[in-house]
């Protein structure tokens, strides 16, 4: 039997291992490589000592360097806020009109406004101001309380029917049905008339006839024009919606319109002054105005 430590063909030493008669040549690894392995192990031990490493039941080892990612985050967030300060100061000192007219400020306000919107507004109005049922779309050109920069800023600041703010946007549509102002027949007629204003395909459920629309026109003239206007085009000052477009807050079918006349729903938006900074509100107004181009 040949010497197991020497390969016959190459004359090289083997590791002495034999697998199914196959021997493994010993091509030794350099010793410094092994040293590097030990150095890495030593490094990992050092790391355990220096940095937070081992979890316990109610905490973890803190490490002698006192490194804390939360602290690093706060520092970086503070540094970022410091870097933004020059812009925030400019925005605080400008009106929304001025921000909109300055390319650089507009760019900053759009980015900032988007972040603030997604954090605070998107829950109801949906990302991009796409709106949800009973929460107005902000990306179209239909505005209940006005869609220019100042009006949007006013709405954000003071909210709509916000109980905490005396300057809030406030209106109340009477309960025409439940308070007995109109009979159910009259409400059906005026609903048919309102639907005819926007020229939408009439809802079969409304059973609208030229006669009922004609009757409804009279009911509308007697009860509704004070707020919604003679043409039904609404009134931004009062927050009375335009009824002639085909954009509906609660729905444009006969059932919903009838229900809204009988006992109206009234949406509420919080006042954001005090919850957001002045600069944040301005950026938000500029952003919301840009979503659909405003008015």
């Amino acid at each position, binding site marked *: 039997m040949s010497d197991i430590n020497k390969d016959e063909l190459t004359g090289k030493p083997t590791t002495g291992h034999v*697998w199914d008669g196959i021997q493994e040549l010993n091509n030794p690894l350099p010793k410094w490589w092994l040293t590097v392995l030990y150095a890495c192990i030593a490094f990992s031990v050092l790391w355990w000592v220096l940095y937070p490493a081992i979890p316990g039941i109610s905490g973890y080892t803190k490490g002698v360097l006192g490194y804390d990612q939360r602290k690093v985050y706060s520092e970086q967030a503070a540094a970022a806020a410091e870097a933004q300060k020059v812009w925030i100061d400019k925005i605080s000192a400008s009106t929304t009109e001025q921000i909109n007219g300055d390319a650089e400020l507009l760019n900053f306000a759009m980015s900032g406004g988007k972040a603030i919107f997604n954090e605070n507004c998107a829950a109801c109005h949906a*990302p991009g101001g796409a709106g949800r049922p009973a929460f107005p*779309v902000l*990306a179209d050109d239909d505005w209940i309380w006005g869609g220019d920069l100042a009006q949007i800023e006013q709405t954000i600041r003071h909210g709509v029917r916000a109980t905490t703010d005396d300057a809030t946007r406030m209106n109340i549509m009477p309960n025409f049905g439940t308070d007995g102002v109109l009979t159910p027949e009259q409400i059906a007629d005026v609903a048919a008339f309102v639907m005819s204003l926007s020229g939408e395909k009439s809802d079969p459920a409304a059973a609208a006839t030229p006669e009922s629309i004609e009757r409804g026109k009279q009911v509308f003239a007697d009860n509704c024009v004070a707020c919604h206007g003679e043409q039904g085009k609404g009134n931004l000052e009062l927050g009375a919606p335009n009824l002639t477009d085909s954009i509906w807050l609660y729905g444009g079918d006969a059932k919903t319109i009838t229900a809204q006349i009988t006992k109206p729903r009234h949406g509420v938006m919080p006042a954001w002054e005090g919850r957001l900074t002045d600069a944040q509100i301005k950026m938000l107004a500029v952003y919301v105005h*840009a979503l659909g181009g405003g008015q």
Partner: protein
Amino acid sequence: MQIQPIKPEQTVSSTSLYADHVKIYPQRIWGRFRVIKWSALSLLLGIYYLAPWLRWDRGPGRPDQALLLDMPGRRGYFFWIEIWPQEVYYLAGLLILGAIGLFLATSLLGRVWCGFTCPQTVWTDLFMQVERWIEGDRNARMKLDQEPFSLRKAWLKTAKHGAWLAIAALTGGAWIMYFNDAPTLVRDLVHFDASLAQVGFIGLFTATTYLLAGWAREQVCIYMCPWPRFQGAMLDEHSLIVTYEAWRGEPRGKKKAKETEKLGDCVDCNLCFNVCPTGIDIRNGPQLACIGCGLCVDACNSIMGKLNRPLELITYDSLSNSAARAAGKPAKFKFIRTRTIIYAIGLVLVTAGMLFSLTTRATMDVTVQADRSPLFVKLGDGEIQDGFTLKISNKNPLPMEYRVAVEGIDGLSIKIIGADPQSVKVGGDSVGTFRLLLKAPRENLKHRRTDITISAVNVTTGEESRHGAIFNGPKHDDDDD
């Protein structure tokens, strides 16, 4: 599979699984390949250390360094070319070019990269020369290392490592000059105003240079570098490599008068082994650790010359030529082979592609991203409006005005928040981001999704860039889904 247990008497006694490092003491040699090596070293290190100092005027307020990778500014400058981060594929192209060039050079000339131009080789060569100046040649160095500690030994070692560290620091310093304005950086370093990052990177590259060229040397080539392992795939019998012509040299031996007839030309002087920077014996045949530097060719020729024997016993030649000479046939170089043709074509194609793309490179770019929420809105008058984010990249150094237009739907109207679509202003060397609102009459939308093209034209130069987009609308009767 059957594993046989190792019996005690069979266990490895003489060999370990880990090899001690054998220090190599390359001897000084002079000759054709040494001249090539010094020339390559001077040229490459000259370029490396001096290139950051080249200036290139790009106009006021812009960097005037010819070669600069401005990381915080997100720009790469290469003489007249300015690369934006989104054009980093030029760097990929450069790397592909380098790889194919390496393949071509290797299939033609063997390991010329390893032997003459690899940074590891170049700096190791420089460090070895410094070592030779301070501690003396091979025998003196071996003797010094075996000597007991003395003041002289301490002084020589200190001087050597000091010189190495100085070169390493210069090397590390030069490296970060490709990422910073060189004169400013030097001024900052002198005044101790350099940033922690700058000093840190100088320290890092100083340490790696010192370790790799001073201590690791051939260990890098033999154990760390992947290239020696697969460069063999580029070689064939016609590639030029360093070979020992065993047919002529063997049997080797010291020349003794009566034995002359029997012995080959090799006198077994071991000079080829003594000069080798990776410490191998080329007479064992082509091997992984041979970096193809040709110093053993110089060594052997110097001996053969003195002995009046034919030169080129160790030669930089192809295996096929070596075999032809052994058989008494004429040697014939064959550079045009399938593999060299393929590599050359690849090189030409990639170079042509890079040149074409660089010369026809646009100085502007327009991209459009449609809003995902809402996809579209219905306006009070029944028209459909879509919102987009429009980005216009102005790669000119000066501010430019662009005329934005949209095609694809009749009666489409354009609105850009805070700008006039006829003259959208974008600052020099920057990207303008705008909110774009497109409004289309509902009756002109024939499908839920309509292809549109948004174009921007540079008002001054007439250059145009276009970008396709989708205009979303309500479901249409003609839609399938």
